[in-house]
């Protein structure tokens, strides 16, 4: 599903964000990507969702060479992947319902099908009672859930979550991970979670890829741990 071969990325300011990274992720996998700040986690996500282009190497996602996409084609590609951003990135002037609906309107989902699916995903992430609230009326955890609902509404092949538990307390974090596990199991979605929350990694053991200074320093199958 995801295949990265010898990808490197250096930013204009000279930061070597990723050096010669190679990794394979299969369909239906649930993977953690861990590492300290500045280890290249965010750059990895940006390469995967097409926001950045690798300087060298290949990034293939669901059969698309992401680095070679034209600017106008990037949105079309993004319909295959759902991304949950660290700061949620909800449209501020749209309600929870409208935010989720927007991602589906974009792909021309018929109205009744759209309404049904939006209600379904909002219920799945447990914020159905907040559908008519605007983002600034929701708590961090609720916004996070709406962002997840939006990311999975179109049944993407891959769901990438950037620090999905970053701003949440341990109990809420646990709930979010359980939710992602449920999505992984029920919808068969490949899931990539970027985190530096060791508690959730410990409590919900999965394959874990560790990054440090732009290199992969560990790739451990389920249950393994570093340090």
């Amino acid at each position, binding site marked *: 599903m995801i295949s990265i071969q010898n990808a490197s990325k250096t930013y204009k300011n000279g930061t070597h964000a990723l050096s010669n990274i190679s990794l394979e992720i299969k369909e239906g996998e649930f993977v953690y990507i861990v590492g300290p700040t500045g280890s290249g986690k965010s750059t990895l996500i940006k390469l995967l969702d097409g926001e950045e282009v690798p300087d060298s190497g290949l990034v293939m996602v669901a059969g698309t060479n992401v680095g070679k996409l034209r600017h106008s084609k990037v949105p079309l590609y*993004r319909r295959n992947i759902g991304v949950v951003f660290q700061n949620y990135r909800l449209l501020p002037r749209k309600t929870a319902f409208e935010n989720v609906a927007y991602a589906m309107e974009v792909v021309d989902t018929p109205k009744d099908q759209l309404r049904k699916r939006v209600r379904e995903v909002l219920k799945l992430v447990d914020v159905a009672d907040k559908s008519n609230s605007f983002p600034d009326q929701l708590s961090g955890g609720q916004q996070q859930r709406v962002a997840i609902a939006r990311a999975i509404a179109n049944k993407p092949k891959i769901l990438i979550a950037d620090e999905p538990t970053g701003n949440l307390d341990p109990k809420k974090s646990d709930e979010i991970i359980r939710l992602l596990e449920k999505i992984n199991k029920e919808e068969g979605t490949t899931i990539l979670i970027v985190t530096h929350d060791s508690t959730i990694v410990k409590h919900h053991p999965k394959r874990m890829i560790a990054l440090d200074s732009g290199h992969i320093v560990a790739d451990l199958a389920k249950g393994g741990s570093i340090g």
Partner: protein
Amino acid sequence: MRILRRFGRHIKEGFLGVGRHFGMSVSSSSAVTITLLLVGVLLALTYNLQIATQSIESSISISALVSYDAEDEDHLKRITAELEAIEGISSVTYSSKEDEFNYYVNSNQDEDLREFYENYREDNPFHDAFIIGLDDASLLESVKTKITNIPGIDSVYDGGENTYTLVGVLANVRLFGGALVLALCLLAIYLVYNTIKITISSRKDEIWIMRSVGAKNGYIRAPFLVEGILIGLMGSLVPIALISFLYTYLYRKLEGNLFGAFFLVPPTPFLFYMAGILMAIGVVVGFLGSYISVCKYLRVRR
């Protein structure tokens, strides 16, 4: 069906956008209002000037008097043909010496004087004359020379030195007015473009989020364009209402003329045209302003 549904959605989103960013919408459209108000006032002024100068210019004419020895029909026919062949002449009107005599006599108010003149009817001292209208007052001098050279023309009269001065002044006034309107229109576009740019810049995150959930550029742009058009329309309403009201009021108050010399253009249909022009400027400016700035912000991130 798909396209229709999409179109409807863009329109709806456009209206929603205006409503949900009401403060921004109002500030953008007030920029449109102020500039269109200026454009409108200037438009009314220059248009009136245009009409006034045109009517003055069209009343500028040359009288060519036929010499006494060329008053027979053959000569008159030849002169008429030669006059009509001159470029820049809009009309040639023949006025016989009897007509000229009558005109002169009747232009006197005094009964006694008129009766006195009647004694000369038999021995009419007037010439047959041609009244020549011009396409363009600036041709006055060259046309006059050409007429003087036609055989059988005794003398040619225009309004003299003053006519030339007036023609020059009018041409300049019109040019200046036109240039001012154009400059102001450009200024309006720039001002509105800037305001809309600010409005949209506050929403560049929004544009990026739309892209990140898979909205194509055209799809993101469409509601912003509807918004721009609406803002332009909203901004043109106040100037249209204000200028219409003021113009009609002034027209009534001055009873249709200025300084007793210039006739004002009647409010209808002039005001309808102006409303149309202002609305069109508003729509075009709103559309262009948002198009340019959305395109710019779409490019900020991949």
